């Protein structure tokens, strides 16, 4: 338990510094595989860089499961604490992020929802946790997966946008969790322009996905 608390404190410290030192976490030399190896060896700086890179994705995945934003932040912190604890116990032999963190966060969210439901079983209907959790994380896991038709529609919409915009989208969303500044430096655009492109692509893909839903 002390190890988890220690890891949690370290993660919290790093997140508070994130806004002041974004360059450290987004350094081009911070190769993901190298960072993972160093983190598995217990390197705190590597853990800090990995947490800074993937924390937002973990929070967003929890929000997508219907977890309240404050609880999502707490669960994301707990996710990293659990992973660091596992590493310190020598139980973590491989570190593939963000997938491992997303899975851990989903497990914690489901466990949290079950515990809340169990505690409120004798309460009035209006006080059931579903009132505060618009979607049950355990139930929404299957609902979140896109159908083949949705994917093909999204791919078709993606094929219609300009190659440069598609490149920006793929760099930002293909799982590497590159910061927008890194994406901007790779494609030779400003960070503002990269975000503008991402918003435009999101609108097009949202339309494509909703068309299928309404059909």
């Amino acid at each position: 338990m002390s190890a988890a608390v220690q890891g949690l404190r370290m993660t919290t410290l790093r997140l508070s510094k994130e806004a002041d030192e974004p360059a450290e976490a987004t350094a081009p030399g911070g190769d993901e595989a190298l960072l993972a190896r160093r983190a598995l060896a217990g390197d705190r700086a590597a853990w800090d860089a990995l947490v800074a890179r993937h924390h937002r994705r973990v929070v967003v995945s929890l929000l997508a499961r219907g977890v309240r934003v404050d609880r999502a932040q707490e669960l994301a912190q707990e996710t990293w604490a659990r992973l660091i604890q596992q590493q310190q116990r020598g139980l973590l032999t491989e570190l593939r992020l963000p997938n491992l963190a997303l899975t851990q966060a989903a497990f914690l969210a489901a466990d949290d929802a079950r515990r809340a439901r169990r505690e409120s079983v004798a309460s009035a209907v209006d006080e059931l946790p579903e009132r505060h959790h618009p979607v049950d994380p355990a139930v929404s896991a299957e609902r979140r997966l896109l159908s083949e038709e949705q994917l093909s529609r999204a791919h078709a919409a993606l094929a219609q946008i300009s190659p440069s915009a598609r490149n920006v989208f793929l760099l930002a969303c293909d799982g590497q969790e590159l910061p927008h500044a890194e994406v901007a430096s790779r494609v030779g655009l400003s960070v503002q322009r990269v975000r503008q492109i991402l918003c435009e692509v999101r609108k097009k893909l949202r339309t494509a996905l909703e068309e299928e839903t309404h059909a």
Partner: protein
Amino acid sequence: MLKPHLTRDAAEQYILGALAPEKAASLEAHTLECEPCARLLQEEALLSEQLHEVASTVPRDAHVLRPARWDTRRMGLGTAGAALATAASLAFVLLSGERPPPASSPLPLEMAPPTVALEKLEMEVAEPRAVVVACPDLATQASCTQAAEERGLLVQYPWGTGEVPRYEARTGLPEGALSARRPVSL
């Protein structure tokens, strides 16, 4: 007093991490009090997760970065290569005379890149220098020699060691074998 509701753009900016820390904190505080705004934020987060899924299923070759003019340059190179190959094959046909290429070594002009074709072309252009022509008789020797030298060919004079070709050479077939009028036993 409840703060103004979220706009979709604001929720999108929050999901992308583009909001200033103060605005992000204000947005988070609002979604804790307002269920419709919490649902809007959840929709944007869900879309973000779906977009990650879409990006992860895009074929990898779409990630290849190419300069904007790469295709144009490649098309130009292809056209130039095809033109060179055509010119090389035409020159080969014109310069190689009536000698057919050996059956065991097919011409590489159809298959090889233009640079290889050019090398072959140079080899084939140089090859006629080894061709020996024989002037048939003394009456036409002067003009025959001059014409051959102008073409860079070697001349075998009638009084040389080589045998003067005879136009009335025998085929070795029985007389009348090439006639189509009646069958002839060989």
